[in-house]
């Protein structure tokens, strides 16, 4: 086995380097190079977050999924230009939220469409937060798609104000102040004054 000796450390080192890199970094680079397995892994890793964020904007699963489909078509084209692959998740979520917003505008929908779930379920109040989904949905309808997108990015996808700012062409302080105003509106709408 002596003639393998020189290769094995190299293979081992390559594996260590690969393992040490943040998972999204190597995935993004491989996907941008056209590696279909990496593409599949990237979709599997981020699709749910994107749909959840888009759903808060649209209020409808089908529209949210369609928005995410459009978002991926944009993401594939721009993947090679992502400057910071470690931050691919906020980037993807933001594209999904933006596409959801654009899709609503294109369809002349000014409000969130009805949820397809039982009335009882919507009316139920979770003891953990004390908010009925029915009330939340009603409050969301009063917001613009852009405002719902901000809420989705912050509270559903968990992006911080800097990440949202980078994705939505606003300043971080602007994001924080808009979120604060939105929370205040929701507080009034949901009777938590």
């Amino acid at each position, binding site marked *: 086995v002596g003639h393998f000796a020189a290769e094995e450390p190299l293979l081992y080192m390559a594996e260590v380097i690969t393992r040490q890199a943040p998972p999204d970094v190597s995935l993004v680079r491989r996907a941008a190079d056209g590696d*279909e397995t990496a*593409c*599949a892994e990237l*979709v*599997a890793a981020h*699709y*749910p977050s994107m*749909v*959840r*964020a*888009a*759903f*808060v904007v649209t209020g409808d*699963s089908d529209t*949210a*999924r*369609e928005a995410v*489909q*459009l978002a*991926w*078509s*944009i993401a*594939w*084209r*721009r993947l*090679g*230009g*992502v*400057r910071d692959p470690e931050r691919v998740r906020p980037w993807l979520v933001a594209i999904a939220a933006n596409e959801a917003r*654009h899709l609503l*505008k*294109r369809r*002349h929908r*000014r409000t969130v469409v009805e*949820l397809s*779930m039982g009335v009882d379920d919507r009316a139920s109040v*979770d003891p*953990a*937060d*004390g*908010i009925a*989904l029915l009330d*939340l*949905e009603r409050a*969301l309808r009063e917001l613009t798609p852009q405002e719902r997108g901000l*809420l*989705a990015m912050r*509270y*559903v996808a968990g992006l911080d104000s800097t990440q949202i700012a980078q994705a939505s*062409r606003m300043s971080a302080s602007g994001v924080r102040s808009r979120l604060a105003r939105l*929370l205040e509106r*929701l*507080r009034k709408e949901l009777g*938590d*004054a």
Partner: protein
Amino acid sequence: MRDPLSFEDRIASALGRYADRARTDVDAVAFVQLTRGGAARSWSAWHLPRALRLALALGLLLALALAAAVLVGGRPSPAPTGVTNGWIAVAANPIELATDGSGATAPEARDIYLTREGEPPRRIIGTSDDGLTQGCPRFSPGGDLLAYGEGIATIEFRAPVPGRAVVVLGVRPDGSATAPIQRFELPSEAGALACPTWSPDGGRIAFSTGAELWIGEIDSGRTIRLPTGGEAVWAPDGSSLVALEPGRIRTFDAEGAEGAAVPMEALSLQSPAWIPGTRELIAFDYGSDQERILAIDVDTGATRVLRDDPYHGGPGSVALSPDGTMLAYRRGADGSQVVVTEVDGSDPRVLSGGTSSGLLWSPDGQQVLQRLSAIALTPGASAVAYPSPADVDMDRVPIQHVSWQAVRE
């Protein structure tokens, strides 16, 4: 009373439960499309039912519009585009008042104004003393962004402009501008003012630096340089850019990779526009003995003459309606007739109200703009004069310095 932090936590929890209602599973077909498709290949299968419904609805609307037009004896206007007309952006140079009180035109220190019916125009970009030309404003397809070319002012627009850049900023619904969100600096040598062209998805702009065509990504600021000086037009799906060079058509994909060039008869083309749903462009051919409006097959280079009687008055001598069904062009010895035809050049109709400028369709497809005066296509409707900025010389505004915002409600 709960403190704001606890309410924030509660909202986060409730929104999380709300988002849990979304279906986040990816079915097998969609997964393949997502990972392999990209925009062009994945769209049809994924959206087919919705697209069919939309096509049927649009077809029905078109049929109703045609029937109504026939009933009233008028000729049909383009079908409604589903958008309304927003702000009109105009790049014009302010008039400096001479000491005797007469208007004296300033050097080409163009600034950008917004105007619309019922509201006074406002200058949103540039100041009288900044020494800069800001020109070629272009609203993004979504209407929320505005791109424009910038450079150090020179006396003549066509003279070399040093210090060039293309700038992108946001336009709020009230017509105010945000701070620039992207700025593409051009090479240090002087050249013509760069006029941006938006990709259909609004994610990129293309602009000529003279010897090169650049693609700039709005989000990342990345640029791709293409070795062509030809006038370029985006494919409707945004996947490629077609450059019209003398005697040939060159195609580049969004990453700059070039396909095979296609030879073409025409030598000097202007104002190209892609006819939706086809592989053809319309363009103004001013390089042969007879000026013509052509349809050009981008795959074969074959040309069809749509009209052989146009007047060449520079950019905007021919304009394709937003829905791609009609042409507007100028005719007559001095170009003062405005004519609209079907997209194949048939059935010409002279509109009342002549022009001495290039033409631009309104986003809703119902008006043809000549500087800031619009001719309505509806029979019997009067022309609409949009408010001109009081301190600018509108006669010196070529149509490439006018852009009309599409608002999708």
